[in-house]
Every structure is written in C-alpha cells, then in structure tokens.
C-alpha cells in the first residue's frame, strides 16, 4: 500500500465501525461564535474556551469546477462552500460526485444537501496521497 498522510487529524473524525465521518467545529464559550477549523483563540473575543460541535450535513452555497487546479491535483476538480446553518459555519472543500467526471456539472446544484466524507484530496510534494475531508451529495 502506498504511503498516505492525513491533513489535518484534528479537523475531522473517521469513526471506527463504518459510521460516517464528520468535521469538528469549535463554539466559543464566551461569545457563542463557532469556528472551523480549530483556532488557538476566538478571533471575536480572544477566549480560549471552546465546546466541540460535530458538522455532518450542510447546504451548498456555491461551487466551481476547476480545469486548471493546483499541482498535485487532477482536473476536473469540483470545489464548493458548504453552509452549516445551525452552527453558523461555512466550510470550503472538494466535492466528490461519483465516477463519471464528464457529468460532473449536472450533478452539482447550488442549495443541494451535502455530507462529509473522507478521501484523497491531492498528492503532496513528495508524491504521497493526502487524506482529508471532502463533501458529497447527501444520501
């Protein structure tokens, strides 16, 4: 098996036993604002006390399909911003929509429900696969 690296283990959880992965957001105990990913101080009030929140399903705010992505990523690459209304957090990440990349455009719509999944997001500079969170249309 090829060597893999994880970006960034404290951003998300892949539960054992086949449960769906989720992101970990941090709600400031002082001012109530929620942040993703983890930050040392709340940018709003500089408190260092946070509650953990799980982000599982959100709505697609906007997206694009990049045909000239960064080095280490194969085109076409779908990327989108997913809103989690309850927590008040928006997360930008890759979108994966099944095997047929030719039909990628037809499978993504603004407003659709998306869920977190884990997968390879790119190759790093040394050629290793980088594993992280992504989004995929919710089932």
């Amino acid at each position: 098996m090829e060597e893999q690296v994880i970006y960034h283990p404290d951003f998300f959880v892949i539960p054992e036993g086949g449960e769906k992965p989720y992101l970990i957001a941090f709600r400031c105990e002082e001012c109530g604002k929620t942040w993703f990913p983890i930050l040392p101080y709340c940018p709003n009030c500089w408190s260092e006390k946070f509650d953990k929140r799980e982000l599982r399903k959100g709505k697609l705010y906007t997206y694009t399909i990049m045909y000239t992505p960064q080095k280490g990523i194969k085109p076409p690459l779908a990327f989108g911003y997913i809103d989690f209304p309850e927590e008040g957090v928006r997360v930008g990440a890759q979108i994966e929509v099944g095997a047929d990349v030719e039909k990628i455009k037809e499978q993504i719509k603004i407003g659709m429900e998306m869920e977190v999944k884990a997968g390879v997001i790119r190759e790093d500079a040394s050629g290793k696969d980088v594993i992280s969170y992504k989004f995929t249309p919710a089932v």
Partner: protein
Amino acid sequence: MNYRDVYIIGVGMTKIYKKAPVTADELGRQAIHTAVKDAGISPKEIQSIFIGEMGGLSGSVCFGQRVCGTLGLGGVPMANVESACSSGAIAVHLAYKDVATGKSDVAMGIGVQHLSSSRAAGTGLAPDPRDPEGIQGATMAGIYAMRAQRYLHEFDATPTDLALVSVKNRRHAAMNPYSSYQQPITVEEVLSARTIADPLTMLMCCPNADGGAAVIVATKEKALQLGSKLVRIAASSLTSGIFRNDFRDMTEMEITIRCTKKAYDMAGVGPDDINMVECHDAFAIGEFLYYEAMGFCKHGEAGHFIRSGGPDYGGKVVFSPRGGLLSCGHPTGCTGAAQIVEATWQLRGDAGARQVPDCKAAITHVTGGGVYGLDNAACTMHILTR
C-alpha cells in the same frame, strides 16, 4: 492632525509585457527614470521611497534597494512593502502619507513584478497550501469562479454578460500601446475559450505579466513650482480583510465596500463625480462586483449595467480605459502603481486615443491576496482629481 494636500508630479511605467526583455530590477529602474524625467526634478530631491513587489518573487531581499542603488537614490528612508496584488498601490499610499504628514516634501512609490521569470510562471495564483482551503485545491480563479457562480444564480446575469467585460476591456486596450494584448475579441471567442474554473473561461481571467511603474508625489508648493499639470490625490485609502468563517455574501465585496466608503468620505465625492475607474478586474466577475461596491449601480444590477453600456465610453463611467488587468495583463505587484499612472495621464488629458472625455476625477482600486477566511487580504484605493 492637519494633513497637507498631496499632488502627483511625475509618473512613469514600462510597457506591460507578457515576457519582459529585461530583469525585474531593470523594469523598476526604467519606470523610475521615466517618472523622474516626467517630474522634471533631480533624483536627489526624492526624500523617501517605497517599493511594492509581490512575495519576493524576484528572488531578492531588499528589492527596492537593489533597484534604486545604482540610480544613486540611496541614503533616504526606503521600505519594501508586500500585500500581493496591492503591493504597488500600497507603495504609493505610503509615499502619499509621507508627504501628507510632512515627513517628506517629495516621495516616490514604485510597483514592479516580473512574473514570467518567477516560480509563479505558467501557473494560476493560489492561496497558500497551508491554508485549509489552499490544501483542498482552491485557486484564485476558483474563488472568483465561485463568486460568479453564486452571482449568476442569484441575479439577472449570464456568462454572456461576463464576456462583455472582457470584450469591452480588450476594445479599450486596442488604444493602449502599453497593453500586453490589443487584438479585439468577440463574445463568442470569450465564451468558447478553454474553461479555467466554471463559469470563467481563459479570456475572463487576467494573464500573468511583467512590468514596472513609478509615481512621484509632492506638496502643492512643489507641484506649482514645477509647473506640472495639477493632479491631486484626493483620497488614498487602505484597509485589510476581516477573518470570518460564517455566511459571507460572496456576491458583495465587503472589503471594497469599506475601502470605497473611506475613499469617498476622504475626497468628499461620490460615484456621480467619477469619470473613470481602473479596478481589480483580475477576473471578469470582479468588474461586476466593483460596479456595485463603488455605487455605480445597485447590487444585482451589474449585468444590466454592462448590457446598457454603463461602464463604457459614453456611459455613466468608463471602467478600465487602459484595458484593465484582463487585457494589459497583471504584473501583480506593479498593477496598483500602473493604474495610478494611467489615471494621472487621463486627468492630464494625455491618454491619447483612449482619453476619457473631460476627465476630472478617477478611481484606482486594487485588492490583493487570497488568505483563508478573508474577503481579500488588502484593498487599496486612490481618488485622483484635477
């Protein structure tokens, strides 16, 4: 505190090149030489110097000293400034501030970039790969494409309307010998060009470029003494991005809205007083968002505004008379200073075939930097008047 009025006494720039025949240092020196001659001063009269270049891409530390040393400009306060695409405009802002506050009577801001020889050559610019969105593959084109996608989803506008920006700016560039690209293009060509990030095609994205531009500013007394045509910096406004990861409206350019308000307040003018704008049209959707952010049309009406000729010669305000970044090309750290050079020529009535008729007030606007959680890292605006 009482600030002094600041005037532009000399400007100079190189052609914006797809690939410059000289080095980055030399681009800077050529621009400075032209600006000093234009001002009609001795180079030794410049009392402070600021130089903007993006991210040390020239491969040099203390780039300003490297450019200025052999011109005999050393011995004065000199600082190298960096905020990506805004670097050159910030250099002029700092020169302005020195004269406004009485630190210098004559100061110079310079912007230089030689992208074709840098590690950014042949690539699209992207946020730092250590950013959570950078590592996921976001590029600058991708981020603007997502703004465009959302804009087209919410408002009455189509990819054809976006293409009109590219076509207009190329038509303007045909009258600008400093532009990298001058060949006219059609809406069909723009729409059928290779997609970079849906819905933006290659002709809706600015090309990388090389160039240098220099702006010399001074007190009113100095300007009058030199007998130059008076071009005043009525506002020089700089601000930085605010970190958020909640539901930012990506169809509004929050940092530009803030910066515009400061600039209008400072100059005591509003959109009805402005004859031309050089904005940060790195991507066609940029112009749409800036028509609105600067108050030339209402939010959501940019499509209608361009269809009706609003941002063109004969319309409400001429956007990108030199051809913008879309046609001139975008030598990142140089662009902000180059826009000010263009606006100065326009206000002096020296802009040749692309002269904006009876140009009395101009805005230059350049943002900069894709940093995670920020709308943009920096926004710098100038309002020039005659």
